[in-house]
């Protein structure tokens, strides 16, 4: 079993907003994060498997790059997470929730059993790991 990690970076704006709460309640709960702001996210995606004896690869990185482009970059890069995607109409786009969304779409897009883990950096000082 070998693990392969590819990283991508994307920039997005967001505000922490729970769709079930009022603006005042969101402001009280989330403080500054309830204002529209942005991050340079970095995503590290790890796939696992035995290298194919013919190609020597766990997965062709061109294919992995295409999946990341389609599933992550096209959805989130230079977008507003609240307004330009359907994932955060109710749930706030915290790094926990964004990592869970990315986990879901990648597990569905990758060949069965290949997803190992992801690490989503919101900035240099905060990251979320989702394993399995």
């Amino acid at each position, binding site marked *: 079993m070998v693990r392969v990690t590819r990283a991508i970076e994307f920039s997005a704006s967001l505000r*922490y907003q*729970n769709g*079930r*709460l009022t603006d005042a309640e969101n402001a009280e*709960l*989330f*403080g500054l994060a309830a204002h529209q702001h942005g991050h340079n996210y970095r995503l590290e995606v790890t796939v696992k498997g035995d290298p194919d004896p013919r190609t020597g690869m766990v997965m062709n990185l061109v294919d992995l790059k295409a999946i990341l482009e389609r599933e992550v970059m096209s959805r989130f890069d230079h977008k507003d997470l609240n307004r330009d995607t359907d994932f955060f109409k109710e*749930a*706030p*786009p*915290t*790094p*926990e*929730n964004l*990592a*869970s969304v990315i986990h879901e779409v990648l597990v569905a897009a990758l060949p069965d059993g290949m997803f190992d883990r992801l690490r989503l950096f919101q900035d*240099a*000082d*905060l*990251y*979320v*790991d*989702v*394993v*399995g």
Partner: protein
Amino acid sequence: MLEVTRRYKLPAAHVLANPRLSDAENTEIFGKCSNENGHGHNYEFEVTIAGPVDSKTGQILSSDRLDEIFGESIAERYSHRLLNECEAFDALVPTTENFAQIVYQDLAPALAREGSVRLVRVRLTETPRNFFEYGDPR
């Protein structure tokens, strides 16, 4: 399984010497790190927590609250200090192995008071070439 990791930095000084040993023994064991006048590092911490993501906040714990806990439990005690003079090191040589365990022991109970938040591990980087981890394996 979902974990959140936050990074912090603080500078501190230490002397690696066991007061129960002779100067010669300390020099033999700890080498240049036993300089009695001390030396220091920019310590870097990675604090990893786990727990249910609160459906209201979308968070395990707000990073502001984690920052407060780190500030009260760790930064106020150790930032810009000589670790040998800190209470936690009364009977311990302030190696980074011991410091990582002390940080874990200081943080775990404070985090346990925040509902179902659990401290998973602490990674303490002493220099870009040495880091030490305590807690659950990765």
